[in-house]
């Protein structure tokens, strides 16, 4: 095929513009539906944070879905029209853009990616302080055009907006997999559990989130604490990132044991029970502790990474994991491993005690655990006075009284000898038992050859 235009193309130039279809596929490829919804919630939370960093009461997020549409609505301030023009709907974050301090949305792809993931038609209505806009996008139509643009439907700007502030996003023409998840009643349960965990901090600061009118409960992160069993606390700065690590013991729940990693208050990983957070097992690349299993279910560790510029935090773009190679995380991981080792030792000793021949009433460590009370992490981190009261630098646990380990007194020796020799030996001893022959010959050897 030839046309006039092609002749003008430099033969040394390769056309490399991405197609929109490729772009959307790549963007949504590694994103799960729950992470997509989580990302939309993060945007709402950032809105609340911008208005009132320390107290989210009065802010509400409503998520409603059925098998035809998905809707998320909030009263968290709305998207300013300039933010929409320059940032919110652009792919990638323009250099020099300053977002909300300490925000959880940072990569400049979160919202778009989530919208594409869920459906093929979306509509956004936003009412900010001095502007408002409405945007309708039919993704299939948009894919056919060559321009990388979205057109606002209605907008007002530079005048006081009398509407209640907030954002409402409706997504229709749901993607097939999404529709099937929305039809599954278990999906709601697991979405709720995930969002509760991810938003532990915003929920504890008074935020309301409802899914299909069911309110999310705030999860409490707790430690067992007493005068002799205290969690360890370490705080330091890595460049502009401040890091807090708290680790100790908690309730006996297998699925809750492990490390929890938060970036600007958003849980990105946890409970984490693999080599990523130091459960490496004794061998292999073994720079950590043992592999996670039942005896460590009391272990609790919480790491809080905080930075005004969220791009410095060690999370991945889907916010469901850490950036394993980042210096911030590598350094934290080394400290986490150090801080967890004494806890592991304590839990090992509890296991020894349980499985040893100690009678129930003599179980020293078990009694010590029974003497603990629960304390919330939020309480611990609340003030310097509480940190001093509830934590120590290195995990504290009482040592059980030393008990001599009984040494085995008898051992079994076995070896093979030719049958003819054994028969001759037994005849000589006037016995038919191999055992008797063995014992006699060993006794003879000891008497004749080994000093007493």
């Amino acid at each position, binding site marked *: 095929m030839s046309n006039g235009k092609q002749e003008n193309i430099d033969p040394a130039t390769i056309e490399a513009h991405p197609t929109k279809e490729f772009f959307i596929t790549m963007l949504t490829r590694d994103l799960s539906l729950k992470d997509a919804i989580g990302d939309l919630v993060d945007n709402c939370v950032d809105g609340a944070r911008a208005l009132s960093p320390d107290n989210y009461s009065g802010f509400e997020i409503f998520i409603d879905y059925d098998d035809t549409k998905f809707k998320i609505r909030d009263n968290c301030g709305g998207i300013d029209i300039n933010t929409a023009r320059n940032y919110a709907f652009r792919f990638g974050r323009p250099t020099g853009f300053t977002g909300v301090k300490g925000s959880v949305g940072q990569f400049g792809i979160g919202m778009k990616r989530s919208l594409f993931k869920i459906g093929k038609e979306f509509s956004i209505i936003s009412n900010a302080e001095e502007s408002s806009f409405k945007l309708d996008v039919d993704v299939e139509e948009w894919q056919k055009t060559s321009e990388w643009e979205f057109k606002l439907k209605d907008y007002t700007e530079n005048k006081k907006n009398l509407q209640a502030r907030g954002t409402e996003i409706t997504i229709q023409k749901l993607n097939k997999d999404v529709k099937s998840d929305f039809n599954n009643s278990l999906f709601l349960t697991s979405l709720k559990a995930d969002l509760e965990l991810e938003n532990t901090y915003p929920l504890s600061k008074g935020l309301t989130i409802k899914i299909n009118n069911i309110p999310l409960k705030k999860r409490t992160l707790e430690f067992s604490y007493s005068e002799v069993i205290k969690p360890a606390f370490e705080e330091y700065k890595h460049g502009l990132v401040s890091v807090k690590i708290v680790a100790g013991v908690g309730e006996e729940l297998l699925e809750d044991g492990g490390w929890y990693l938060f970036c600007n208050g958003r849980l990105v990983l946890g409970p984490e029970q693999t080599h990523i957070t130091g459960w490496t097992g004794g061998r292999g690349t*073994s720079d950590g502790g043992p592999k996670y299993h039942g005896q460590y279910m009391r272990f609790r560790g919480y790491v809080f990474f905080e930075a005004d510029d969220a791009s410095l935090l060690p999370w991945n773009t889907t916010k469901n994991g850490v950036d394993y190679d980042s210096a911030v995380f*590598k350094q934290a991981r080394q400290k986490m*491993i150090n801080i967890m*080792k*004494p806890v592991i*030792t304590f839990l090992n000793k509890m296991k020894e005690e349980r499985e040893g021949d100690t009678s129930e009433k003599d179980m020293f460590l078990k009694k010590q655990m029974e003497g603990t009370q629960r304390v919330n992490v939020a309480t611990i981190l609340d003030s310097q006075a509480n940190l001093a009261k509830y934590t120590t*630098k*290195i995990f504290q646990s009482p040592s059980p009284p*030393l008990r001599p380990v009984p040494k085995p007194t008898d051992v079994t020796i076995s070896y093979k000898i030719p049958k003819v020799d054994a028969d001759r030996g037994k005849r000589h001893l006037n016995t038919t038992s191999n055992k008797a022959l063995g014992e006699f010959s060993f006794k003879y050897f000891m008497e004749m050859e080994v000093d007493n």
Partner: protein
Amino acid sequence: MSFRKINYKLRPAKTVERKMITESFRKLSAFNHISDYQYIGFGSIYFVDFVLFHKHLGIKKMISIEKDANAQSRVEFNKPFSCIDMHFDTSSNVLPKLELDRPSIIWLDYDGKLSTDCLSDLSTTCSNLAPGSVLMATLNVQAESIINIAKDEKQEEGDDDEIYVSVGKEEIFEHRLKILEEQISRYKIPADIEAKDLTPNGLPKLIARILENEISSALDTRNLGLDDTEYLYFKQLYNIKYEDGAAMLTFGGIIVSADQLDTFDSANFFELPYCTPEKDAFHIKIPNLTTKEVVLLDSQIHEAYDFKDLSLKAIPKPLKFINSSEIKSYAEIYRFYPTFTESIW
């Protein structure tokens, strides 16, 4: 549990090593008052190192780790000073619990061979030790004897007639490598390992390299979060080999921050011939000499040995009846040559 097997006081090379190390610690005064250091070691029931460092260096904060809980009352009885704080547990359980943010001297004097736990002890301590602290480990570095390898091969083949069968270089290498891989994981063994690295001459060097890798890797991670002036370096001081039976290696050094590098240079550790930054170990060899010979050697030592070049000069006539290699070995350690006498109390 080697204290039941061997009396630590009667190991001549070990005795010499301890005295050398004590002397070298005096140089730590460039960093801190020596008496401000804490000492962490494995005192066993003899506490020889504890007594030396207490009496010669004035160290008063001392921690001894004893893995044998059964020995508790015996250890407490033998503890020479009440300032020694005992921890009855394995070193890998105790070390993470210790506060290492003051200048410390840690001597992990393992009896046994290199293991995963040793490496984990090194990384635990390195990720916490304060700058100016000393970390050392002593390990058995005896290579697997080729006679044992030949015997093993024989058993596998079930050949009753020959006691030893010939084994090739490759089989010896594979066998020794397998043993090392059982001790530590293959992820810790340098990728460029060759047969000669596992021979009696090569193994001490290989193990020193594995220990240094572990230390550096822990410091590298720690450095990720530090400013340029706080950046931490491991400066090797000790790479000492000796045999009181099995081949032993003491490997260690000091952790210094970037702003202590000048202090480290001015401390001039390497004027001591037994302190070395090199890959080749300083070898303590103890010649067997009578008391009369020792007196003679001392009287002629300046004629026989050049202390500047660390080499033998022409052997003076009165010493002709002593082997020249023994004269050299003696000269290298004569200040520390131990005298053992029997005494009746």
